[in-house]
């Protein structure tokens, strides 16, 4: 359980996190998404006590992170960058992490087994391919068998196979009753992996809900209309306050009016209707509409 109360972080000229209140509960994978500079990493650093808040509080299991005894036994953290020194061997990296929190050394071999790193223990971290680096990062989070996982951007710059593997693992961990918070810049990579999305833009929480909620709430939901005289209908629709643009020569994309209202209008002005199809936006589109044009590719 992670609780944010009026969490605010101001720098001299910018507000990185702006009065954020949210509760991230157990049992589901919660994704924190937003474009570059939205405040995701700052938010995680506030939660982990790496930067102090200007105002508000962030607690993990009811306590400030810095006050947790043996924090890695309670919270597994993967940072971005992960902080694994390239000159260290995989085993030594996991060993110093384990020892810092009194975690027995045999857990190192166990988490290597859990993440498919068997046989890589003697390798230097800088020689690992990106897929194994991700596995090493996740292995580090699992060392203390924590109830809460905080993972900064596991899908950025990793091969799709690695992202799928991580997504499946996180779902399993959340399914076992753990609290899982993941961040990402691209919402489509987390679609299917996360149950709940917190959309952050310019430090503010602009949406909170499941993928379905986000799609349903998308203001730009549109209706495709095909008819005999699209030019005439377009003028009438615009007069009725709808947003209209041509999808192709004889099809209109109408926003701001529901299908039933459009149908009523066609009947009133005697335009023969060929097709009236609500266009379901994708999660990606809903996300773009939420954060404007600042979506990172």
């Amino acid at each position, binding site marked *: 359980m992670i609780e944010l109360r009026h969490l605010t972080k101001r720098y001299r000229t910018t507000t990185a996190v702006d009065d954020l209140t949210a509760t991230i509960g157990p049992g589901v994978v919660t994704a924190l998404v937003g474009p570059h500079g939205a405040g995701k990493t700052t938010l995680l650093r506030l939660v982990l006590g790496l930067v102090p808040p200007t105002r508000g509080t962030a607690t993990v299991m009811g306590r400030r*992170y810095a006050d947790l005894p043996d924090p*890695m036994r309670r919270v597994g953290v993967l940072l971005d960058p992960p902080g694994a020194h390239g000159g260290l061997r995989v085993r030594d990296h996991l060993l110093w992490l384990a*020892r*810092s929190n009194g975690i027995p050394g045999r857990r190192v071999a166990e988490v290597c087994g859990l993440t498919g790193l068997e046989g890589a223990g003697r390798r230097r971290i800088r020689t690992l391919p990106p897929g194994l680096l991700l596995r090493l990062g996740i292995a580090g989070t699992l060392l203390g068998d924590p109830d809460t996982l905080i993972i900064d951007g596991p899908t950025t710059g990793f091969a799709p196979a690695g992202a799928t593997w991580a997504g499946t693992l996180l779902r399993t961990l959340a399914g076992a009753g753990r609290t899982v918070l993941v961040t990402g810049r691209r919402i489509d990579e987390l679609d299917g992996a996360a149950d709940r999305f917190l959309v952050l833009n310019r430090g503010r929480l602009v949406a909170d809900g499941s993928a379905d909620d986000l799609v349903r709430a998308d203001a730009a939901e549109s209706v495709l209309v095909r008819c005999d005289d699209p030019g005439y209908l377009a003028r009438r629709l615009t007069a009725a306050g709808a947003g209209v643009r041509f999808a192709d020569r004889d099809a209109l994309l109408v926003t701001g009016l529901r299908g039933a209202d459009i149908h009523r209008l066609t009947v009133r002005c005697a335009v023969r209707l060929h097709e009236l199809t609500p266009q379901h936006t994708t999660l990606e589109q809903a996300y773009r509409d939420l954060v404007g044009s600042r979506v990172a590719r």
Partner: protein
Amino acid sequence: MTRTVRPFLRAVWSEGTKLPSLPATRRVLLAAALLAAVLRVRQPAGAIAPDVGGYVLLQVLTAAAGALSVTSEYATGMMRLSMVAVPRRGLLLAAKAVVCAAACFAIGAVSGPAGGLYLALAGLAGVATGFLARSATAAWVLLVGAAVGDALLVRLLPDRPARAASRFSPTAAGDRFLDGRHAQSMPSPWAGAGLLAAVAVIALVSAFVVSHHREH
């Protein structure tokens, strides 16, 4: 009590794992150990005082090891992970200081306890400088500057204040401490050691204050 002691011991164990595993610190410490062994062999039989000239080089190596144990973490983002693993920054700094001081003491102790203490203090100054500077280059400039700078500054002063200042020069104090000779008009070797320790403690405290308020 256990709320601080146990996390501290764990942090010490963790830092003790890092120090020989990180390539930078391992290499510099190995080089220092090798040099210390050579100096020990060259030490005349029966002499209790280590070779001061050799120790200036050794001191630079151990201070560099102390600094590298911190700056190599900052260079790779490892420091942030260390602070996530050990969120109490005072504990993290203290653990690094203790582990580094112990390693440096072991290296210097081959030529007697004075040598051990001297190198341990150099290592501590290195750790503190690493936290203050965060980059290896900046730490290097500060350490070398401190090692030779005070003698140069003393030389710039007029005669009388220069004599007064040289009484409090850490470098001169270190030389006297290693030498074990008690020159008249100068503080005793142990007062010199005290001065060195005070410098190391001041550096560590300022490193703690700075890193406590710094954002990571």
